C-alpha cells in the first residue's frame, strides 16, 4: 500500500525510538566503557578508566569453558527446539483444521506461568527419586547411580522446554503461509509425502526456520537459570558467570567484558542474517 510521507511519521516513532536508543543502545557504550575499567577498582571506591583491553584477554582465558558450554548447550537446545517445534507448528498449521487458533493459544498458555516456577517443576520431575529417573533406570538407559539433575542432559532439556515457544511461533507463521495447493501439485507430480516435504514444505518454511533459530539460540545461550537450577557448577554457562561477577564478585569490568563479547557475537549473527534477508522479514 502507498505510505504517507510527512513529519507525523517521525513524531509517532520518536518516543519509541528514543526510549530504545537511550535504554538499549546507549547502555552498550556504558558497557564498553565499564569493560575497560581498571579491574582493581570496585563499585564502592569507583572505577578508573584505563582502557584495559587486557580485561578481555583475562576474561576469555578464565572463562572459555562456560563460553563454549553456552554455545554448545544453546545449540543443542536450538536443534531440539527445531525438531519439536517444527512438528508442533506443522501440526497446528495443517492437521487441526478449525481448531488452529485454539491450539495456538494452548501452545502459548503454559508460558504465562513463571519461567522460574516451570524450571523448578522440572527439578522435581527430573529428581533422583522421581518417576523419570526411575523409568530410565528400569529401562537400563541410566545407570544404578545415574542422575539427570546436575548433568548437561537436564540443563539442555530445561533450555529446550523453556525456549520452545520462541521457535514455534515464527515457524508457525512461516508454515501457515504455505499454500496447500502447492503440496497437492507436488503430489500430482509423483512426489510421495516425504519427498513433498523436503522439496516443497521445508524450503518454503525456511524464513521461519531461520528467524526461529535466531530467536531461540541467542537467548538460550545467554541463559543461566536452567543451568543454575537444574545443573551443577560443572554445567555453568557464560550467563551465570556474568551474573555472579556482577552480584557476588562485584567485578564489573570482567562482567562487562564478557557481556560485550556475547553481544558482539550476537549482533554479528543478526547482521549476517539481515544481509541475506533484509530487515522487513525481521518483524
Amino acid at each position, binding site marked *: 500500500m502507498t*505510505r*504517507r510521507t*510527512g513529519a*507525523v*511519521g*517521525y513524531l*509517532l*516513532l520518536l*518516543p519509541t*525510538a528514543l*526510549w*530504545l536508543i537511550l*535504554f*538499549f543502545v*546507549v547502555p*552498550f557504550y*556504558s*558497557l564498553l*566503557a*565499564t569493560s575497560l575499567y581498571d579491574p582493581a577498582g570496585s563499585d564502592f571506591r569507583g572505577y578508573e578508566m584505563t582502557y584495559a583491553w587486557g580485561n578481555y584477554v583475562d576474561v576469555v582465558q578464565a572463562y572459555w569453558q562456560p563460553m563454549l558450554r553456552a554455545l554448545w548447550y544453546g545449540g543443542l537446545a536450538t536443534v531440539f527446539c527445531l525438531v*519439536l517445534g517444527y*512438528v*508442533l507448528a506443522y*501440526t497446528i498449521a*495443517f*492437521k*487441526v483444521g478449525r481448531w488452529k487458533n485454539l491450539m495456538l*493459544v494452548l*501452545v502459548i*498458555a*503454559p508460558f*504465562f*506461568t*513463571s*519461567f*522460574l*516456577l*516451570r524450571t523448578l*517443576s522440572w*527439578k*522435581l*520431575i527430573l529428581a533422583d527419586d522421581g518417576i523419570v529417573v526411575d523409568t530410565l533406570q528400569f529401562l537400563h538407559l541410566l545407570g544404578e547411580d545415574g542422575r539427570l539433575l546436575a548433568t548437561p542432559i537436564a540443563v539442555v532439556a530445561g533450555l529446550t*522446554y523453556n525456549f520452545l515457544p520462541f521457535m514455534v511461533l515464527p515457524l508457525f507463521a512461516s508454515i501457515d503461509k504455505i499454500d496447500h495447493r502447492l503440496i497437492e501439485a507436488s503430489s500430482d507430480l509423483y512426489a510421495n509425502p516425504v519427498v513433498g516435504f523436503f522439496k516443497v514444505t521445508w524450503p518454503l518454511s525456511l524464513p521461519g526456520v531461520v528467524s526461529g533459530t535466531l530467536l531461540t539460540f541467542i*537467548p538460550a545461550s*545467554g*541463559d*543461566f*537459570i536452567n543451568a543454575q537450577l537444574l545443573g551443577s557448577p560443572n554445567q555453568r554457562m557464560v*550467563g551465570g558467570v*556474568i*551474573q555472579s561477577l*556482577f*552480584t557476588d564478585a562485584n567485578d564489573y569490568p570482567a562482567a562487562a567484558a564478557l*557481556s560485550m563479547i556475547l*553481544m558482539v557475537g*550476537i549482533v554479528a549473527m*543478526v547482521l549476517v542474517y539481515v544481509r541475506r534477508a*533484509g*530487515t522487513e522479514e525481521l*518483524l
Partner: protein
Amino acid sequence: MIGRWIREHLVLMLGLVVLAYTFIPIAVVVLMSFNDPASRNVYRFDAFTLDNWTDPCAAEGMCAALGKSIEIGLLATLGATVLGTLAAFALVRYDFLGRSSTNLLIFLPMASPEIVMGSSLLALFVASGFAGQLGFWTILIAHVMFCLSFVVVTVRSRLAGFDDSLEQAAMDLYATPAQTFWRVTFPLVFPGILGAALLSFSLSFDDFIITNLNAGTTTTFPMYVWGAAQRGVPMQVNVVGTVMLVISMVIVVSGEVASRRRTAKLT
C-alpha cells in the same frame, strides 16, 4: 487398517504429544500448590493440603513482592503499549528515512540475551551515578524497554492486515480524520492492541534476569522465587503460579470462544 490410520494421523499424534509435553511442568506447579512439604529444603510432594490456598500470604515477603510485580507490570504495560502502538502506526502507514535501521533497532531487544541487556543497563545506571538509586524506577525503565519491541510487532501485524478502503469510505461519508480514526480504525485495531498489552504484562511480570541486576533492594515476585529456591521454596508460590495460569487461560480461551461465537452467528 490400523497401520493406515497411524500413518495418516502420525504427525497429528506427534504434535499432540509435544503439546502435552509443554503442559507437564504446569501440571506439577498446580499439583505442588496443594503440597504440604515435610521439609522446606526438599522439593517433593508429601501430603495434600488446602492451607496454601486459604492462606497464600503466609509466606513471608511473597505478597509484597507480588504487589510490586503487579504495580510495575501495569505501569510498564501502559507505557509500552502506548508508545509501541504509535510506533507501529508509523511503521505501517508512513514513509521515512532509516526504515532498515529502525527495524533492526526494534528487532534486537527481542533477540538479545537478557543477561546482556541487564548488564548494559546496570552499566549505564552505575556510570550515570544512579548506583545508589536502583529500584522501582530503574526496573520500570528496563521493562518498558524490552516490552516495546513485542508491542510494536503485535500491533504492526494487526495493522498490516487492515483494509484501508474502509478509512477512505469513512472520509467519503463525511468523517473527518479524527472521526475516521476513532470510529473505524481504532475499533478494528483494538484486539491487536489488547493482545499486545497482555503480552507486555506477562513479559514484565515474569522477568527475572534483567530485573535482578537492576533492582537494588526492591524485590519482585520472580526475584522472590529465585531467592526462595536457594533457601527453600514455600508452596504458596505455586498457588500464585496456578492462579496466573488460570487467569491467562481464562482470558485467552474466552477470547477464542467469543470470536468463534461471533463467526458462528454469521453462518
